[in-house]
């Protein structure tokens, strides 16, 4: 496989001129993914930031085919596109669904499950910034414990969100999907490699990419990539793949960097006290203990 990096990736742009915030991790992921997916792509995006900033008549940010879908319907519209192209005999195309964490793990969950069940020939990319950002930072199923959002306020009685981040990667894998992966825009080459792998996969594949959001998380816009690295290095997110029925850890840090440093750089976690952070670290360690025991690496 071609080594993907800044030197080998195409200079062509398929996604530009959008109105995303400065430092947006989501548009960064999308721009790079499109470079791999190429001009024969058909993209389906639900209501959410990327749809809101990219389809404002008459300024369209995709140079490829793309459409907004009903919020719940990213995977079903995408599988309809793929089925339509197949029925028309149009070959060498790539259909992708690109949804946020809410559009994947909450309202889009059923349609995604159905598409995987049908083994629809699509790539589903979840740009995970851990809350509903387009509507103004509300808690989603992928919001981690202790996050302050506008619907999970932190105060004297609650530490922000009190639920754990839904384990979408393994839920998707449990369908027996052909290919699934996690990624982070902090490790962009790893992400691009996974997009390429998904592109080469026949049937449904799923990539959940971690995309920091300066607006929703409260950090300077130039920290997006370093935070996306720090979350992986501190073990609060992980880079992994699921293929042929097996899990593989792509990065297994000998020692985690400080979770506290990662958390405290963001105003959504500013309120956390040492006990909260200790709890978050405990949960992290439990997860890694299981992954290291059961997964390949």
């Amino acid at each position: 496989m071609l080594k993907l990096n800044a030197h080998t990736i195409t200079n062509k742009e398929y996604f530009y001129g959008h109105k995303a915030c400065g430092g947006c991790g989501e548009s960064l992921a999308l721009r790079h993914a499109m470079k791999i997916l190429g001009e024969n792509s058909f993209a389906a995006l639900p209501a959410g930031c990327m749809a809101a900033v990219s389809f404002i008549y008459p300024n369209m940010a995709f140079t490829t085919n793309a459409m907004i879908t009903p919020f719940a319907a990213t995977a079903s519209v995408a599988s309809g596109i793929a089925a339509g192209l197949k029925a028309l005999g149009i070959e060498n195309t790539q259909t992708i669904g690109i949804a946020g964490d809410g559009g994947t793990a909450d309202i889009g969950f059923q349609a995604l499950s159905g598409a995987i069940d049908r083994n629809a020939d699509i790539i589903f990319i979840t740009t995970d910034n851990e809350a509903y950002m387009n509507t103004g930072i509300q808690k989603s199923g992928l919001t981690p414990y202790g996050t302050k959002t506008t619907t999970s306020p932190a105060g004297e009685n609650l530490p922000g969100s009190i639920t754990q981040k839904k384990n979408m990667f393994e839920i998707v894998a449990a369908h027996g999907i052909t290919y699934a992966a996690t990624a982070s825009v902090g490790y962009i080459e790893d992400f691009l490699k996974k997009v390429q792998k998904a592109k080469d996969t026949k049937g449904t594949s799923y990539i959940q990419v971690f995309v920091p959001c300066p607006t929703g998380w409260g950090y300077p816009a130039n920290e997006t990539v370093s935070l996306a690295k720090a979350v992986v290095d501190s073990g609060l997110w992980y880079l992994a793949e699921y293929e042929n029925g097996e899990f593989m850890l792509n990065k297994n840090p000998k020692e985690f960097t400080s979770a506290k440093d990662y958390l405290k750089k963001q105003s959504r976690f500013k309120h956390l006290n040492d006990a909260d952070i200790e709890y978050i670290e405990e949960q992290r360690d439990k997860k890694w203990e299981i992954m290291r025991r059961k997964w390949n690496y």
Partner: protein
Amino acid sequence: MSKQKKFICGDDAVAEGVRLARPHVISAYPITPQTITVERLAEYVEEGSLKAEYLHVESEHSALSCAIGVSSVGARAFTATSSQGLLYMAEALPYASGARLPIVMMNANRSIATPWNIYGDQMDAMFLLNSGWIQYYVEDAQEAMDMMIQAYRLAETKEVMTPVMVNIDGFVLTHTYELVEIPEQSLVDEFLPPISMPENSMSLESPKSLCISAGNDTNMEFNMKQHFDMLNSEYFIEAIDKEFGDKFGRYYNGMLEGINMDDAEIALITTGTVTGTTRVVLKKLRKEGKKVGLIKLRVLRPFPVEKLAEVLKGVKAVGVIDKNISFGYEGTVFTNVNSALSTMENMPKTMNFIGGIGGRDITKEDIEIAYEKLFEFLQGEKIERVQYMNVRCDY
């Protein structure tokens, strides 16, 4: 030419019509009383008599969303639903119509919960009159099959480019067996050419962004274009039905059919299968020398304002049979008819007969009573303008 006839139910007839229309992709989810249609289509695909992709979706919302994806690349899409299923996919209906995607959907008219009930009334489709879909209502299995073919032709007409919902009364039509004439595939192929929609579909040759957002500086104009194309689709509904009749020998009179309207003093307006029952009563009353007529409304969107006013010229009282209630008001068809008739110089008196809710039978006797009440109403007797047929409680 030998004509093939089959003894089949309404759902079967829809499936036959869909097979003849050769859709590229069928997205299917079961719901009573529609299910037989998607079962038949699955069999056709399995045996190879229909070359189509068959998608087992996990919900009605996805059934229509899949069809939206299919249609967005210029392929022919079919789906079918009913009742709660239609309401579940409701959000996606304006997506399809706003994006001008010529999807055809069969809706088996069924009551809405609660109370739960699987039988036929027309509450479901009436909810979606404002969804931007053209709505047909059919009377029998033959018309159900024929309208699947006409629906694709209409939806894919360049000037129309609007999705079409064909409404089939639950059980009374979906599950009732009739002799249906099946046209030859070659004739259908002549009538319904391959789909072509280069201007509003995504393609490699001409990449597009679809289902876009438009601000308040342009949004209204998009809606106006959609609205006026729907209004103008009335012309194509008439023309396509005429052409269909010339080719297959069955005419349905486009937007509406008037029966015994030439000298009618009073008339009933019906949608769907209750038309058939009313035809029988009409014949009897005519034999008795009563000047009664019947109008079968075949299309509720677009609404045949001028044609309805024209056919009702000289009629003194009109009753509208509604198999739905708009809670807190009256029957929905009645509201629509009154607005249309207000364009007339001498507007007839109007009455509403609400019945058949939750699948309660509307009998010949009920319809005869409706005609009688219309006569009484005409003669100036004081009776409620909105009547409820065959109700078993005080209200």
